[in-house]
């Protein structure tokens, strides 16, 4: 009975708590108290997200199996980012603007969480705009310490505004063709609507979402944003924003299945996989050449997102399940790497990692687990998810897509190794002071637990992904 009650109110808590946390951050003084209150609310959000079960949600939203797997990932990752955010906001931003930064972080998180609940495209668009605008503003607050933050925020703003425009036009075209903005209505409309209009609508939706998710080559904003946009903004974008957009992208890709054997639909799926492959290869090459750990993450994130796109394009329960499964792993990797380097100063050149594992054992461990995850080393969650990705590509007999995933994995050995090698194999470094921040510790612990713990037993996560995949794969 308690479980059912918790399940019923959990969606409400998930949506309300971040807004309350944002309000608390703005209204409560001193900042330390506001931070503690907002962190408690963030923890409440994460806990509630674990209790969300399929069914109706407040404000006309809906919870399905996709929400059930996406929400805990977005909520837990966001929660630890918010707890760490108190310290990072103070360190990166204007002294008086720490409260605003924390509030913006919570609002952005709220946007991405809401997007996971969205039952139609207009609602999704509304939440997505809240999500990315919060991030842009958050990055801009870092201009006090680093002028490059303002440029990166402006670039993020322009790219995301264009992406949102594409989403809005896509949703309008979709409505024009089907009389609905609900993706599930596509099957009913497929016979009556003009296939080409729907295709154009879906293409715009996918391009918009891919740009928001940081898929290459639509990610011109990503490297500067991660590199100079502030540690909190980078963390939130990498572990929450990117995957919030990818969840929506999965839903749109799933709606394409409505076209069944239609040649256009198949061509579209191949195009989606092609974009994924380009993202994998471009992201991998750029990551190998990156000189800054945070910029490396932006490119590595593009490579990971590309793999997810390929899985979505293969379609069916297996493809979508593999994509959702990998999303959780990629989020954990990003938390690990970016969380690890977040104890460094605002910039994180690769040279700064020399001996980092000795100076900051916990952060070093999180970074190592994240890097191993990017490399898909055995016993990490990413290894299992990579397995499923290759399996889904082989099942669809898309050998080239499997090849792209394998090439991405091989390249990840290169850039993951670049992160890993200086950590323990080299001694010393520019700074010998121990880097330890209690507030960032939960982030490191979650990254390590997710990367390694789930690598040893991901059965529950895989089953959740399968249920989500079944919902998407069977979208008529």
């Amino acid at each position: 009975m308690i479980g059912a009650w918790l399940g019923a109110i959990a969606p409400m808590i998930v949506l309300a708590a971040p807004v309350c946390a944002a309000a608390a951050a703005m209204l409560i003084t001193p900042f330390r108290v506001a931070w503690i209150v907002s962190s408690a609310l963030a923890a409440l959000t994460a806990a509630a997200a674990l209790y969300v079960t399929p069914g109706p949600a407040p404000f006309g939203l809906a919870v399905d199996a996709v929400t059930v797997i996406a929400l805990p990932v977005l909520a837990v990752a966001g929660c630890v980012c918010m707890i760490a955010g108190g310290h990072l906001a103070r360190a990166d931003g204007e002294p008086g603007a720490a409260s605003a930064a924390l509030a913006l972080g919570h609002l952005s998180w709220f946007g991405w969480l809401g997007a996971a609940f969205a039952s139609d495209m207009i609602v999704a668009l509304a939440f997505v705009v809240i999500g990315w605008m919060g991030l842009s503003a958050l990055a801009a607050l870092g201009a006090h310490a680093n002028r490059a933050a303002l440029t990166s925020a402006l670039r993020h703003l322009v790219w995301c505004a264009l992406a949102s425009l594409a989403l809005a036009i896509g949703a309008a075209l979709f409505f024009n063709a089907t009389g609905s903005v609900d993706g599930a209505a596509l099957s009913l409309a497929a016979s009556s609507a003009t296939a080409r209009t729907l295709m154009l609508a879906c293409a715009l939706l996918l391009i918009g979402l891919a740009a928001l998710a940081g898929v290459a080559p639509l990610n011109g904003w990503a490297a500067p944003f991660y590199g100079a946009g502030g540690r909190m903004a980078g963390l939130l974008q990498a572990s929450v924003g990117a995957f919030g957009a990818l969840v929506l992208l999965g839903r749109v890709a799933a709606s394409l299945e409505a076209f069944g054997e239609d040649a256009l639909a198949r061509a579209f799926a191949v195009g989606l996989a092609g974009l994924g492959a380009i993202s994998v290869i471009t992201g991998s090459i750029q990551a190998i050449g990156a000189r800054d750990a945070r910029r490396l993450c932006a490119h590595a994130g593009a490579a990971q997102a590309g793999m997810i796109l390929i899985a979505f394009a293969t379609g069916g329960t297996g493809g979508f399940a593999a994509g959702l499964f990998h999303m959780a792993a990629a989020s954990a990797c990003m938390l690990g790497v970016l969380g690890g380097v977040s104890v460094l100063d605002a910039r994180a050149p690769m040279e700064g990692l020399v001996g980092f594992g000795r100076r900051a054992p916990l952060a070093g461990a999180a970074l190592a687990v994240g890097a191993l995850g990017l490399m898909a080393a055995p016993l990490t969650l990413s290894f299992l998810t990579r397995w499923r990705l290759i399996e889904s590509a082989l099942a669809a007999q898309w050998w080239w897509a499997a090849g792209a995933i394998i090439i991405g994995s091989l390249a990840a050995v290169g850039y993951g190794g670049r992160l890993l090698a200086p950590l323990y194999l080299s001694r010393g470094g520019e700074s010998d002071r121990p880097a330890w921040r209690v507030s960032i510790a939960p982030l490191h612990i979650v990254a390590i637990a997710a990367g390694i713990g789930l690598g040893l037993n991901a059965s529950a996560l895989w089953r959740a992904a399968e249920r989500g995949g079944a919902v998407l794969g069977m979208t008529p």
Partner: protein
Amino acid sequence: MLMAALAAPLARAALVALSARIAWLRDSMNILGAAAQAIAAGGLVSALVAGAPARLDLAQPMPGIGISFVTEPVGVVIAAALALMGALNAVHAVFFQRLQGAQASARLFAFSALAAAMTAGVAYSANLFTLFICYQGLILASAPLIAHGGDAAARRATRVHITTLLGCSIGLLLPAIVWTYALSGDVEFRVGGILPADISPIIASALLALNVFGLAAAALPPFHRWLALSAATPHAAFIVVAVLTVAPAGVLGVLRTTLYVFGDAMAQARVAAVVILAIAGGAMCLAALNALGKSDLRERLAYGVISQNGAGLAAIMAAAPPGYFSAILQTIAQSFAATTLAMAFATVAAATGRTAAQDMAGVGRAMPWVFAAMTVAALSFIGLPPLVGAWPRLWVVTALAEENLRWAGALIAIGSIATFAYLAPLVARGLVGEAPSDPFVRPDGVDARLIAPLVACALATASLLFVVDPLARLLAPSWGG
């Protein structure tokens, strides 16, 4: 017992690392840990002979895919042989490092133990998933060993080692494993194989090629350079990488996947098997010829191991019971002989400072025990009867003749002659050559504790001959015999 065989080297690594600053404790832990692993591995052989196989399920990361270990004849026998040699080498390594006054012994011993643990994991793995995990662990654990020298050559060797082995395992072996899973719905090792016997010949051939080249630790060309370059590492690390862990694990991996994944489906992979057989046979000859031109003894032995691995892989690709038996016997005989040779080269280097083949003339007069051991090992390595190294050659030629692959048998014969050419004169010159007039680095010779494990290795190599028959009986069920 299975848990002990897997945990002993891990505990050894941890204890050595913890006692790094207390030399006598660190060295004791290293020797005791290696001995414990050998005893546990021997116990597993006894248990298997008594008809008591063991299984250990550690975790189940995904439904139907677990991290599990099992005792089956092929893995258990080879793991026991490697563990025994590992224990003798641990004793040798401790006194060699002391004699040399070498730095960072704890790191060397700890990573040697980790590599031994991962090799044991490859041998005892119950499925492809576990094998892959242990294999990747082995690659990572052995990298610091190759880098141990710390100079530019060692760094280059490490780079090649990691990129070749990790690249092949991720780029070739992992897709092969996932593809196998997609085809059979299973990754568990089973006698007779898990792939459907009526699998398409194209797919079977592609899968076999992915498996064999994916396991690049076997050093099959074109992925053999990592082993040749590993000669740049110090003696103690070289023995572990080239003789006791990485290289034998590669052949063992190929052997186990061929027997327990392909099984009957090997008939469908005939095209790939013949191509790989040709490459392996050619590699055996060319690597042996290459060894002939190498002056540095470690380099010569590295090419020798590539050559001997070629013989083992050729035997596996014959895909017949005599071939499988030959490959197992070859792996065991090779590990015994190569360990003895490598330890002998290290001992000579420690005593005389000589590492080049042309400087060995007459050294046997000053170091009779070392050269006696070296002679036994060299004769077995060459494949001269009655030593055990001869019998795998005989079996593989029989298997190849039965399969109408006489040309491959000829390659094996040429390879053996080339092996004779690069080893026999070396030993002969050492024994009968004129005693060197220039002084040795250590005119008083080396500690008896450095020679004792070497002589024990040579005795083990010589006495292996007497276990061939019981070994054949123990192994027969592995190919349904």
